[in-house]
């Protein structure tokens, strides 16, 4: 019946890139041989709608069987049967061109499955898509008017069972407004209010006090990363804040009027709005419950995206979440995606006259999955097939105790607050390398906990929901199907054997999708090795290196001290050390605020230093300071890059003469340059902006542009968040001995982290002072140069 009814029909589908949408399009193309589909898809930020369809839909593994059966004819068939219109259900008129609007509205059936399904979407975007989306489609179809045969297309709108709200007992297949629990909300008022909230939040986020806050948050995360990076981060923080406000607004508004979340709330109002404004358009609504991986079609276990139950289950398997709230005898209303798709297609096939106005697709009333069954099966399965931690040890899953939601939340909140506190302490300490990695690990752990807490808050309600969704209409449709339909479009929830489904279909599939470790032992080639291999590939172009704490454990103050004290006698040295120690806190705080200001201030000390003397002394600097404090693994890496034919470039705020000894390692050295006075002394003033912060990114970009090399193929090594602009500019950033902030960023973004150390056993001079010269030597020098110290010392 279904195939025949849909034979030769043109069916428009919205939300085709989503979970249900992809399965739906595939099913139509695979099981209804002669139908055509029109896909309404949004233009991506960089990819056009048609390209998105090719990449995100046709390349999905759902299409594997269709590709296999069509063979080389696949592309041509898709070309013939699928047309794409670029549009957006979140915009009035769906954002379609006139021509596309006609194509769209002239279809026989329009299946609207686009939705903002995220359970924590901001209220206003949920309103635009879920509430107004269906209504906009009806509006457009009405505006274009009846088709050539005088009829309007059949609009099949996908909604959710949860529009029924938080309630116990049977939820029938009727509009909420028709039921006894309706509180008479006006959808128009909600729309206005949601838009108003967006405006308010945007305005509030721009108040000076808030902006100040975003800025200081950005600074504490990035440190002295330079103005552009800071600005970008600040704006990101602001946008995130606005989003959080609106997510929170959605959640509270939904809760206040009896829905579990903004999704169900806006969907419920959407049904009502559609009902009121549909005009001449015949409308059928299909309401699935919680949609999970496929039972059989397109393949058992097929799933798209990481959805609601999966993250919770995986968190449990990873030992992250050892409890999840819920009542053991409660029903978890789960329905495989292929049953939902079959139901939608069946409704479409029945047509406006025969299809029920509302069809619920759920399992709770006919074939309930008890929470205990789910939990037992999950636990047993993971006991048998454990996930392995990074050390290759199996993770033992906890026994489920069915605690209340409040208890779990409290436990998680407590754990989070402990971690947040220790994190703050760690961040305040000047850590580097391995210690900084602990701190980054803590941050990870906190992220995990935050997510777990979010799951509990968001989904806890669903496991506690005790409504039973009746499926009388669905079963009635099922009764009307012939034998062929029943095998090709099985929509009967009673066919699912839950234990089998969970342990042989669903869990293996989500474990595969979540890319967790399922084999014991340490992986032979870990992530860092893989990244290192990518970096040490002859195809790369440039390797840029920071100097201090990246290649050597020293800084500009040390090289200055070394040079300045080289010609001093003992009492002068003591005075020098005391003065420097007194100044140290001041210098440090200056360095933290802005590196180039610090360098300018600090380098003024070189004023009056004779160029000739500095050059002579700098030669010794390579052995006495740079090599002594070098990280051999770092220098080896520079050489490896050179051996591979990469250009190597050193970008440092150190004075050029101090790093002269490193020249053979680099094709280019960009360092601070000081102007020289006619009398052969240094002026103490820098010739140009010292290469720090964003200047480094620019220097590197200019170098690449001038040499015809590509930044995306380049590598940057640095140790501090102030180097973020440079690290972000290249394709292969490497954090070396990162301080806490950079360690956290590197971890989040999956950058390679190297911990390079000084050679064990090497000399560790306590103070960076030049070796004492014999008196005779000093005399010789002072006679020749006429002075033996720089301005700041005399």
């Amino acid at each position, binding site marked *: 019946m279904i195939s025949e009814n849909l034979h030769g029909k043109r069916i428009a589908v919205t939300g085709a890139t989503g979970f249900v949408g992809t399965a739906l399009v595939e099913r139509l193309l695979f099981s209804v041989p002669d139908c055509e589909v029109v896909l309404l898809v949004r233009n991506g930020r960089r990819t056009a709608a048609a390209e998105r369809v090719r990449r995100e839909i046709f390349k999905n593994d759902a299409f594997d069987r269709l590709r296999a059966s069509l063979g080389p004819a696949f592309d041509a068939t898709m070309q013939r049967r699928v047309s794409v219109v670029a549009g957006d259900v979140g915009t009035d008129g769906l954002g379609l061109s006139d021509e596309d609007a006609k194509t769209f509205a002239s279809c026989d059936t329009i299946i609207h499955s686009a939705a903002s399904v995220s359970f924590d979407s901001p209220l206003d975007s949920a309103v635009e898509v879920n509430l107004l989306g269906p209504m906009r489609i009806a509006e457009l179809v009405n505006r274009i008017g009846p088709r050539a045969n005088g009829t309007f297309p059949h609009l099949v709108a996908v909604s959710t069972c949860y529009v029924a709200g938080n309630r116990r007992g049977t939820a029938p297949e009727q509009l909420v407004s028709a039921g006894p629990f309706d509180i008479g909300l006006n959808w128009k008022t909600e729309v206005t209010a949601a838009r108003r909230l967006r405006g308010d939040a945007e305005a509030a986020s721009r108040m000076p006090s808030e902006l100040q806050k975003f800025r200081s948050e950005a600074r504490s995360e990035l440190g002295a990363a330079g103005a552009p990076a800071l600005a970008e981060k600040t704006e990101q923080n602001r946008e995130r804040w606005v989003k959080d406000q609106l997510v929170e607004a959605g959640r509270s508004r939904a809760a206040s009027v009896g829905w579990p979340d903004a999704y169900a709330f806006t969907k419920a109002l959407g049904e009502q709005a559609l009902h009121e404004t549909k005009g001449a358009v015949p409308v059928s609504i299909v309401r699935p419950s919680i949609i999970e991986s496929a039972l059989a079609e397109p393949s058992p276990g097929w799933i798209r995206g990481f959805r609601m139950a999966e993250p919770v289950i995986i968190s449990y398997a990873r030992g992250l979440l050892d409890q999840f709230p819920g009542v053991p005898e409660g029903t978890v209303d789960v329905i495989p995606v292929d049953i939902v798709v079959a139901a939608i297609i069946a409704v479409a096939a029945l047509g406006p006259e025969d299809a029920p106005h509302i069809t619920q697709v759920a399992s709770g009333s006919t074939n309930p999955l008890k929470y205990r069954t789910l939990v037992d099966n999950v636990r047993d399965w993971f006991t048998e097939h454990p996930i392995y931690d990074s050390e290759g040890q199996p993770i033992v899953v906890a026994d489920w105790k069915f605690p209340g939601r409040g208890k779990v939340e409290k436990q998680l909140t407590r754990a989070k607050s402990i971690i947040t506190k220790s994190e703050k302490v760690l961040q305040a300490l000047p850590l580097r390398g391995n210690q900084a990695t602990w701190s980054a690990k803590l941050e990870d752990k906190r992220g995990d906990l935050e997510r777990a807490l979010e799951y509990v808050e968001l989904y806890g309600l669903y496991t506690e929901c005790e409504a039973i969704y009746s499926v009388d209409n669905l079963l009635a449709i099922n009764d009307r199907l012939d034998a062929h339909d029943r095998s090709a479009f099985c929509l009967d929830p009673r066919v699912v054997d839950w234990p089998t489904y969970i342990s042989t279909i669903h869990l293996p599939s989500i474990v595969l999708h979540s890319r967790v470790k399922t084999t014991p032992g340490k992986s032979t080639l870990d992530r860092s090795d893989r990244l290192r291999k990518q970096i040490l590939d002859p195809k790369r172009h440039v390797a840029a290196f920071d100097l201090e704490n990246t290649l050597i454990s020293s800084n500009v103050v040390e090289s200055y001290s070394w040079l300045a004290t080289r010609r001093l006698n003992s009492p002068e040295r003591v005075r020098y050390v005391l003065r420097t120690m007194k100044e140290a806190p001041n210098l440090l705080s200056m360095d933290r605020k802005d590196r180039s200001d610090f360098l300018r201030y600090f380098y003024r000390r070189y004023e009056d230093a004779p160029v000739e003397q500095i050059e002579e002394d700098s*030669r010794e600097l390579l052995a006495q300071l740079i090599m002594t404090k070098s990280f051999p693994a770092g220098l080896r890496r520079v050489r490896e890059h050179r051996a591979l034919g990469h250009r190597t470039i050193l970008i440092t705020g150190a004075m050029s003469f101090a790093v002269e000894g490193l020249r053979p390692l680099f094709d280019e050295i960009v360092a601070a340059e000081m102007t020289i006075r006619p009398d052969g002394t240094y002026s103490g003033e820098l010739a140009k902006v010292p290469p720090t912060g964003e200047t480094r990114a620019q220097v590197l970009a200019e170098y690449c542009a001038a040499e015809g090399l590509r930044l995306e193929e380049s590598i940057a090594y640095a140790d501090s968040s102030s180097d973020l602009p440079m690290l972000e500019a290249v394709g292969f950033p490497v954090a070396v001995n990162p301080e806490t902030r950079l360690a956290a960023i590197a971890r989040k973004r999956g950058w390679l982290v190297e911990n390079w150390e000084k050679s064990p056993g*090497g000399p560790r001079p306590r103070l960076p002072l030049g070796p004492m010269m014999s008196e005779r030597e000093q005399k010789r020098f002072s006679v020749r140069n006429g002075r033996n110290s720089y301005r700041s010392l005399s």
Partner: protein
Amino acid sequence: MPRPGFVLEVDKSTPPILFWRGENFSLEKLPAGRSRVIYAPEPLPAIEDVDGAIRHALLNPIEQDPLPEQLFPGMKLTIAFDDVSLPLPKMQRPDIRQRVIEAVLDMAAEAGVDDVHIISALALHRRMTEAELRHAVGDRVYDAFAPRGTLYQHDAEDPENLSYLGTTPHGEDVEINKRAAESDLLVYVNINLVAMDGGWKSTATGLSSYKSLRHHHNPETMIHSRSFMDQHRSELHKSNWRMGKVLLDSGVKVFQIETTLNTDTFPSPFGFLAKREWEWKPSDRMTFLASTKALNRTPTRLARKIFHSIEAPHQMTSVQAGDVEAVHRITTEHVYKQQLVEVKGQTDILTLGIPYISPYNVHSILNPILVMCMGLGYYFNMYKGMPLVREGGVIIMTHPTQPDFHPVHHPSYIDFFEQVLADTTDPKVMSQKWEKQYAEDEWYKHLYRTTYAYHGVHPFYMWYWGSHALQHCSRIIIVGGDPKTVRRLGFVPASTMDDALEIASDVVGRAPTITHLHAPPLMVADVS
């Protein structure tokens, strides 16, 4: 009259024997009835009038005219001297080189020679620091020459200042310091601490370049040098002698001054280190106890500093000058007289206590590669006749063998350890696969020329020194070494001497014969 060297058969009444362990030592009980300990001869009496002896040698050279007769105004005179690798430990001031150089300079001044260059013949070793140069040549010489740029160090990577002299009949390139080659007279001031030093090796190795050195510093030559301490059975020396011939034929005139030292190695508080254990006095026992206890609590870095500040009371036992080969024959006799110990028969297990120092880590760290070189390159080769350990036998060394490296002195060693040894420990394989890359590396050359780094190829040479031992022995065990590091070297780690003997037992059986080389002080076993 000093007592000659001595081989002790260990019996039940033998006290535990002193083993060096880097910057520390331990006492080990060796199994009675099948162990023996070889002790060096006691220090020979020194020449009392050192300056007189030097003057006498310069005025009465062997197979050459007296030095003053070879000096004339307007001539180019070059004095080359052995670098910081000799002697070990450094000798108390004044260094013998200072005395000889001062004597030569006096004669040069009398003869009106004013074009004098003094060159440290360091081959591919690290440059000496100012303090080290001052120690070797004395402040007077240093201050007179260094500021004018006429006291300097040989630079084997300065093509401008190398002179190519041709090849030997074996096709070996001969290239030495240009100034030395072009001088009217090259005076070489040597210290012959062991029989390997001196002779043509002074000039043909000390003043040459990689191009020249690679012909005798390679696994093939090293394996066929049996041993380095026996010039006539040493391929290394034969090659150097062939090169010496090329020098002579090209008109390089060498006036060789060789000196020998006695084995008075340690100053008074450490005197017990050179004593035979059963002769330790209560005060020696106390010093031993106190120093091991203290050293156990001392950070390694500090312990190294303490040990490297030791200056040996070495004294000169002979000085001879003149023709290189003739002089060296006499020198070798003197060295043997001080160091030779007669030993009957080989042993299953050779035990070696590795000290804190080798020629290549003065004021530095005895890194794992130098531990290998010290045990398998030097101590193993302290023989005449045949090796102390039988073919297929086992060497047990005691040393902490931490993965510690001096970042300034040994940068290429660090990479060698991480890169080359991770790939292979076979000298032949590494010489073919890796040597060239390290030898020609620009960065290592830069560090060798401008800082105080050994040449890039140097760690290979250190490894090659042990080639013969690696081939000869079936197992090398290091007691007390860092296990990971020891395994990287291709050796077996053991925590105690008993464990080591147990580990050795599947190669040499349950009742192997054991020989301990009680060095330093140094000795050469004459094995028959």
